């Protein structure tokens, strides 16, 4: 498990990449990633290309980010989910809260 971040050139978007399992053990790391001293950013992108699994505590963490980024006005896009990850997000109706690509 490791989390890395990068900012877009215009500093408007923060990309958070999650590698491996996304569960409670990533809590602190994930929070540190989005509670960036230079944030909040206009947009967030969660890159799940290398995320293998997630569980309900990960869902909670995504919601924490959503509130941090402005709640209903937050612009958060979750990209490159594998089928399993997407399924969990779908079961939880997260499409209504996030842009899932």
């Amino acid at each position, binding site marked *: 498990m490791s989390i890395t971040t990068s900012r877009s050139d215009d500093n408007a978007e923060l990309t958070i990449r999650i590698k491996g*399992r996304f*569960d*409670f*053990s990533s*809590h*602190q790391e994930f*929070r540190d990633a989005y509670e960036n001293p230079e944030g909040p950013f206009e947009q967030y992108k969660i890159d799940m*290309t*290398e995320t*293998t*699994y*997630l*569980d*309900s*505590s990960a*869902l*909670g*963490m995504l*919601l*924490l980010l*959503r*509130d*941090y980024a402005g709640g209903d006005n937050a612009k958060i896009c979750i990209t*490159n989910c*594998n*089928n*399993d*990850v997407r*399924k*969990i997000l779908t*079961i*939880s*109706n997260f499409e*209504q*809260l996030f842009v899932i690509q």
Partner: protein
Amino acid sequence: MASSVLGSQKTLKILIADDNQSDRMILQNIVKKQGHDTATAVDGVDAIEKFSEFRPDIVLLDALMPRMDGFEAARKIKLLAGEDLIPIIFLTSLSDAESLAKCLEAGGDDFLSKPYNRIILQAKINAFNRMRIMHKTLLRQRDQIAEHNDHMMREQQVAKTVFDNVAHVGCLGANNIKHLLSPLAVFNGDVLLACQKPSGGMHVLLGDFTGHGLPAAIGAMPLAEIFYGMTSKGYALGDILREVNQKLRKILPVGFFCCACMAELNFEQEEIEIWIGGLPDCYLVQGDQLLKVASNRLPLGILKGEAFDARTYRFEMKHGDRVYLWSDGIVEATNAKGEMFGEKRLQQVFEDNLQEPNLFEKIRRSVVDFMGEGGPSDDLTLVELTMMPEKELGIENNYLTNTGLKGPQHWRMAYELCSDSLAVFDPVPLLLQIVMEVPGLRTRNGEMFTILSELYTNALEHGVLGLHSKLKASPDGFAEYYRLREERIRQLDGHFVKVDVRHKGAVAGGVLTIRVEDSGKGFDYQKLDGKLPGPTCYSGRGTALLLSMCSRVEYFGQGNIVEVDYEWQA
């Protein structure tokens, strides 16, 4: 007159043909005195007969003789000699250039003018003997090379058969794959593998090993094994690449690696995922759009495990869209002027033929035409993958009938984690690994992880540690929850979490039952409604997830025991 020149001391058999008896006698005397065996002939016809009987090493032939002259005899003797070099020295009193040239044109190797000079004669015999020996050596070596080559070809044929048995168990014959690959491609380092995934979809890998011959073929074996083994067990593209990378890095000497492109075709979602390292850029034809997919990763077998980058591209691919992969053979195809086909020409072929249904053949034709006659067309590797409905692939979906893929169908395991071990060990990956031994469940590893993780987390956090998810109501509460978790888990004594897993196979599927019991106080499960909480709630989704994935979720005792059924169909 003894000489140390190679072969000069050996007794040679020398045939002397001259119609003039005294000339014949003189020559015979000279040659015999030099220690050689002789035979004589009186004219051309006689010379040919004696040649067959006596099998001379060197022939001394008079140019002008009755019945058949020396020129004619020389031609026939050369014919009879076949591959062997039997030097013919013409004996002649002619001295005009034209006649002398005629001697050589008829197949003679030299001439000796009458009257004979014995020193020159001996020098010539010695010189031609050296040439004869050299020629023999040459023939022997040529035969040896031919034999070695035959041997090598036979060995390659056997190696190829072995390789084919390993590499071509896949589905290269599927209707959506067109490919061009030399029959002995494994020895020029190119490998093409294709395999269906158990959950539907297909993995395709094109590899190009550095170097040719045996080293390339050796590297291709584990590559094929891992590719087919892991694909049919349901592993994801990234996992397979990581495994191959690690394996090749371990077995190949430094400087040897495998440029590769791996694609996963998802026929249901009409999507393709592409990883490309070291191979030339590949092309995606989406309707009438051409998209170049840049090679952006290092080849397999170079980077250490943790540094390896398995990130991929993802593209939408409608039915009929195609993707093209090749090794550098196509780009580097060279014409008679030494020019390479190059990427520009290749791109032009694509741009000119985007609507062409048989674009594959167009590309092949362009490259072959460019190289012209006699180009090494066996170095061209080209692959076309088309997106189509999975049922049109025209291949049997027989991955589960393959030996070893049946896996355990009926089994049960119990696992208990106690006291301080609860703090230091997360049993979920271990349990997941055991469950994944059932081939049909491998494709559901994401769901399996979530179910096992929810069950175990609930037992540990809510049961054993007595943490309430209401704590997670605010961001700070969320952090507090995990701080408390950390604190309480260090002070455990006499606690446990028991996991009991059973699997019962059915004709085309099965039921996995998981029972988890913890040493906590339990909870009032009558109050559970299993509904998903709203977006402002950071917790409470675990049970809803379980309910949506499992056919049965049942609590027992004081709420410290839960049992779920997960039903699956192949």
